[in-house]
């Protein structure tokens, strides 16, 4: 057995929120379980009750409005469903690339975007793209509903700013106000499934001349750089500027996955490739 805990399967968000409020700190939300159940098995987390949110229709929606780019990703939608959605692939290829980079095909049939974000690993692969897209989490609790920008979600290594009893219902990407080119890149140790040594995402709005970049695995939380004005800036100067800003706000560490030196060496390479992805080919990677 993985552990000793109770299991409940609410049928509505209201019911789920009531359960989470009643159970307090001992309750954990069970979506895909690919992080949570591993932690429970390894004794890292010992919840007393798991609240299974996969059979609530409110969390299952995948709503993509292709013309405006507004997207609602239900919190219980598996990553494979997101990665394979044609509208998403066309509108936000960087989002789908990020989803596809996670774990294995089997795990992506369970893992969710919300789960990836809420686990709040500094290497969370969905974080950089959702940061550059200015996404928000819609969370519900017995107190009501609120929107938490992803940029305000990460509080530290494996810590979010969500309050106890808050349940992520979906992830919203705001509507586009023009063409946007997105891409995601992830440096791994092998080509097979791996956690990120460094990851990053970029979104480029050519009509406004604005580039957004976010970087993961180089700080206690994923980091969103301030928007960069690209008008009139040469590509190489832009690459230098992005690398400079990235180095200024990141502090990669030595860990079992990689050395700080390697992360610092590879980050500018990744960022340079990302620039090419979003600025050379419309649609990115």
């Amino acid at each position: 057995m993985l552990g000793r805990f109770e299991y409940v399967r609410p049928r509505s968000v209201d019911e789920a929120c009531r359960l989470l409020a009643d159970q307090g700190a001992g309750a954990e939300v069970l979506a895909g379980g690919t992080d949570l159940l591993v932690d429970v098995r390894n004794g890292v987390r010992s919840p007393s009750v798991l609240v299974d949110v996969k059979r609530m229709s409110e969390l299952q929606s995948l709503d993509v409005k292709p013309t405006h780019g507004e997207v609602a990703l239900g919190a219980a939608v598996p990553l494979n469903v997101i990665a394979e959605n044609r509208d998403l692939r066309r509108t936000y290829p960087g989002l789908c690339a990020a989803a596809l980079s996670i774990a294995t095909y089997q795990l992506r049939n369970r893992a969710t975007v919300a789960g990836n974000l809420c686990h709040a690993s500094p290497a969370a692969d969905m974080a950089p793209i959702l940061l550059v897209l200015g996404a928000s989490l819609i969370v519900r609790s017995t107190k009501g509903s609120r929107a938490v920008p992803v940029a305000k979600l990460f509080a530290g290594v494996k810590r979010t700013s969500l309050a106890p009893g808050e349940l992520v219902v979906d992830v919203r990407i705001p509507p586009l106000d023009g063409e946007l080119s997105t891409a995601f890149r992830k440096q791994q140790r092998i080509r097979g499934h791996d956690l990120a040594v460094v990851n990053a995402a970029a979104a480029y709005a050519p009509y406004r001349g604005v580039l957004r970049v976010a970087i993961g695995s180089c700080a206690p939380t994923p980091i969103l750089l301030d928007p960069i004005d690209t008008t009139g800036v040469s590509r190489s100067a832009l690459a230098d500027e992005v690398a400079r800003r990235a180095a200024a706000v990141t502090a990669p560490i030595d860990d079992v996955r990689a050395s700080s030196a390697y992360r610092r060496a590879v980050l500018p390479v990744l960022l340079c490739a990302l620039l090419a992805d979003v600025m050379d080919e419309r649609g990115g990677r």
Partner: protein
Amino acid sequence: MTRELRVVGTSVPRDDAIGKVTGAARYTHDLVLPGMLHAALVTSPHAAARIVRVDTTEATRLPGVRAILAGADLDVRLGLYMQDKRILARDVVRYQGEPVVAVAADTLDLARDACRRIHVEYESTPAVFDPRDAMKSGAPLVHPDLGSYAHLDGVFFPRSRTNIAHHQKIRKGDFEAALTSAEVTLEARFDNPPVQHVPLETHAAIAQALPGDRVEMWTSSQSPYTVRHLMSVAFGLPHGAIRVHVPYVGGGFGGKAGLNLEPLVYVLSKAAGGRPVRFIATREQEFNTLPSRQGLYSTIEIGATRAGKIAALRATYVWDAGAYADYGVNVGRAAAYSGGGPYAIPNCWIDSFVVYTNKVFGTAYRGFGHLEVLWGVERAMDQMARKLGLDPAEFRRRNLLKPGDATITGETFTPGHGKPAECLDAVAKAIDWGTPSQQPTAPTKRRGKGIAMLHKAPAMPTSTSCSAIIKLDEDGAADILVSGVDYGQGTYTVLRQIAAEELRLPIDAVHINSDCDTAFTPYDWQTVASRFSYMGGHAVIHAAADCLRQIRAVAAQVFGVAVDKIVCENASAYPAGEPERAIPYKNLALGYTYPNGNAIGGPVIGHGRFIAHDLTHLDPDTGQGRPAQFWTYGAHGVEIEVDTETGEIEILRIATAIDAGKVLNAGLARGQVIGGVVQGIGSALWEGYRFDKNGRLLNPSFVDYKIPTAKDLPREMLPILLENPQPDGPYGARGIAEHPMISVPSAIGNALYDALGIEFTSLPLSPEHVVARLAEKGSKP
């Protein structure tokens, strides 16, 4: 054998595949016995410590807990070559991950619960992690009582009051003189980290202590008879009182070669009143508690003439044995006698030290030290070639063993040994050696080519033996009984082919045990060392001949002709020239019954055997002798593309030539080559244990110990199997199981020099490692 072969040499598919693709095949993980208990472990968090106190009071009170044992309860010593191990740590722990307390309970959850309630108090003691440090005087002693340990006298030489479990020497010719007079010399150092076998099925064992001091076991093992023998030695039980079953085994690669979990489950069963006890290692325990492949530090010196002939080679191998060295000492011994590579080296001096450290211990691993040693040797060969201004392939050609040359142990190389030069030429051709690579796919990438030689003989006792029984079924089909284990390599299919060939039966009419059982399947030493097809093949040929003798004797009587006039063909026997009178085997399998009812002969049961012969121990001072039943030679040629910004290496193509002597089954042989090459790539590019400064293993799971996935394959893999016959091999065959893995890292390391102009001396050649060396060099493309 000059006759036309019908079955041997064809790619017969394995029939055990059917059980495996349906899920019907049962592994030790799947076996459940009535009343079976489940075991769990408390392992040491410290690399070196005194066990002060073990408090099991809370755990003992749990319902369903049937036995709790600690090292203090078990005065049993384990080990054959070096008796340095206990079942559970006794008085001290020597590596982080070492089993300290074991629990058997009604369910696995109960057992684990009980383990969580066991409190062990330790007092940390000084530890040593680098074997080079461990060799220095004043280093903490991992085994202070080393001098009193029983060991195989005359074969292994532990040094009391040190951390040196064994010192193997090769002294051929006069190295010092040769080196002094050599025109060009080179010294280089190399190292590789410990790695793990990573069988998909972790170690598992079940034991039931039976009345009358008997024991029955089921174990995921490569060697049922070695398990039986070592259990006999450890517990003082007669061999016949110990019964070992080996069901399907989910991979071994050497990690399941010796004695592992079996004593533990046995003592638990005894303590639990004879109920069967099963222990299955978690994946983390597989990495952290079960054995690994030893790390190695090498120093290699070569002296050569300007014309490119090696005059002298000296190597010092310092093996990181980890906390226990029963198997490790043998790796250190075997690697020494191969330790110069497949070359004619007139003056050779090798010191191979197997050194204790406070880390998880090493054991046999595919290649048995040869991948580790040839990482250094084959890299040094390239360096010497460059120093001489010679093409690395040409330098090797000038030095590869040729008929009449002597190996470093004084064995004479003959045409029957195979053709290493032909292997070299084959891979050179396959990767267009001598022609520069095409343009890389990006300006920040570099391409390079590299080659490396490999060789290995089975590292086994001089009297290693093997046996087989063939009995005929009532329908005239044949059943083969052997105790070698087919844990994926496909040898059972090869043995079926051999029996079918010899008995003149269709392949479908030859069956082989899917399980081994020491009560019924006859002796085999261990399924290691790439000798099962060779020795088992001989045993089966021998057993088949015995069956035919019995068949012919009866048929001769029935037909009233001399025995030598009886032909066996098409599953039947007849007088020469008269096939129309043939009696099918099914009418001879249980003797023959005349029409009037009289019966002669009896059940046809043939037995065969093979014993290693003409081998000698190595001289303790010079290492001279004849350790090798046969040698298998080979080479790899590899072309890579390396990204100088990320350090990632892509293998564009890797050609692997092995002189197999005779390819008994091309499909299975290809499977061994591809599988071994990919496993070798793992060692080359990504795999390696990482420890913190306290000796704690940092990557004991797939999260951070990465093995190749289907996405990590070379673009092209080109196996080339040569067939220069081994005169005394079955149909001219040699073993090839370990060889494809050996020297894969060497070839890639050589290709990296070609691509980047950097000498890599440490494994793995990870992206981070490559970038770090590039940064050191200060070069940007």
